């Protein structure tokens, strides 16, 4: 995250402080409440029209999400599908590490966060049909059934990494492949994730990484592996990739120093 990014996010939080809370009423239409909350908390970055062109957006990198296309990175659904309400709530609750998007968990009530989810969905007609049940790829039950992390799992994950040609974008060492320049859906240059940073935008718990590998990150070149890997293989890959950012000895730190802010990770 850029310094200015944090500063503006902080300003947004400060502006939010009291008034929205005072108006909270349980009998309110969620969209009315959602709009109130959105105008106070979200507009500075995401803009009045939800197009990601708020007044401070120009100082942020990565840029705030444009909601009008209904394209979202962090989903439990198939690539190209809209996220579920729970997916949007998760992002609002946690924020997005490595970006200006803060966690709202302790700043907005549950009611306010649910209302703003409903309001964000009004910016794109892609939400009109709702989520197709067959598009849901990752369920809580699946995540709860995660196999334990073991050394053989990580070793197998390394093979999956090679077989899936992850190195094509992420490099043999997980730090990216400069020979393969990439663009996002808006035509802006984008750098493949550097696994050694450990700063996964969708969250760095194994279920979070599993979700991203399964669904892909829409708006970026990261594709869905739902049809290419079975569940066990996905968990193996998760544990291997997470191990790339693990530094337990002085030797690890010397050989693999962190690459914070070497490049902007979008």
């Amino acid at each position: 995250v850029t310094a200015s990014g944090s500063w503006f996010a902080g300003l947004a939080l400060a502006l939010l402080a009291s008034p929205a809370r005072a108006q909270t009423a349980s009998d309110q239409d969620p969209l009315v409440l959602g709009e109130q909350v959105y105008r106070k908390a979200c507009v500075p970055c995401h803009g009045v029209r939800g197009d990601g062109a708020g007044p401070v957006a120009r100082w942020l990198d990565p840029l705030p999400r444009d909601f009008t296309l209904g394209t979202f990175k962090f989903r439990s659904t198939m690539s190209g599908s809209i996220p579920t309400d729970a997916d949007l709530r998760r992002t609002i609750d946690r924020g997005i590490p490595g970006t200006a998007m803060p966690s709202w968990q302790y700043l907005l009530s549950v009611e306010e966060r649910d209302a703003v989810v409903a309001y964000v969905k009004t910016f794109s007609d892609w939400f009109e049909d709702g989520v197709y049940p067959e598009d849901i790829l990752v369920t809580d039950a699946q995540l709860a059934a995660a196999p334990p992390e073991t050394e053989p799992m990580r070793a197998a994950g390394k093979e999956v990494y090679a077989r899936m040609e992850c190195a094509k974008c992420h490099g043999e060492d997980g730090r990216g492949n400069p020979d393969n320049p990439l663009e996002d859906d808006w035509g802006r240059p984008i750098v493949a994730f550097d696994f050694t940073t450990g700063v996964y935008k969708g969250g760095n718990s194994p279920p979070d990484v599993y979700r991203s590998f399964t669904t892909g990150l829409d708006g970026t070149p990261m594709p869905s592996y739902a049809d290419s890997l079975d569940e066990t293989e996905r968990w193996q890959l998760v544990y291997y990739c997470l191990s790339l950012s693990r530094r337990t000895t002085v030797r690890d730190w010397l050989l693999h120093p962190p690459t914070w802010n070497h490049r902007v990770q979008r």
Partner: protein
Amino acid sequence: MNRALVIWLASLLPIAASGPGEAPSESPVSAVETPVPVDDETIPSAAEAEVDVSVTGTVTTEAPPSTEMLEVTQDHPVCGDAVPSEEVVVKDGKLANAVVFLDGVTVETPPDPVEAVLDQKGCLYIPHVQAVPVGSTLTVVNSDDVLHNTHAYLGGERTIFNLAMPQKDQRIPRPLRRPGLVNVQCDAGHTWMSAYIYVFDHPWFAVTGPDGTYALRNVPPGTYTLTVWHEKLGTQSREITVSADAPVVADFEL
């Protein structure tokens, strides 16, 4: 199914990548190789056309055919050193791979969906251009022993699917739920790969064959805007009036 619908569905066979009769159970190779060629026998010329052919014509151009070879920058054992550009396919001034359709029409019941196929073979998409009704299923096939990252956008901006396809003979069906122009590219560094799938919410569309001709069938009498689209040469529209007695001949020069 009434007769008109059957004829219309039959008309899709040479036009779309594959017709509705192609079961997904066919082997990947035959499923992708058979539907592609559009020869002169399968599209009736204006002279042979029956009454159900309402609009017919030829798309011509003075633009030279694309002759350049696109440089292959990686995966040479599978992709070769260069692939031919498929941008402008012209023979004797007749333009292939142009999509001709009635613009801005709505129908109460959308046309029956089809099973369409997009193959990746020799690091090219086959077919390069196809048109299908909305709600159809597009089965994406990887016939190459290399990672393809099949990324499709609607209207040039909205991702509708983004699939990693690391395995040879992998097949992934994806629904085409919204009408519009879908373009496909490969994010696995195969920057030369491109394909177009035009998705329509009405049945009156066609892709020109190698002879530049097209035919729209069973268009109800009326006045319409007829539009042609080509990936490189742009779009052109004209007004046509369809009557029940004789087919309208509407040629385009792009």
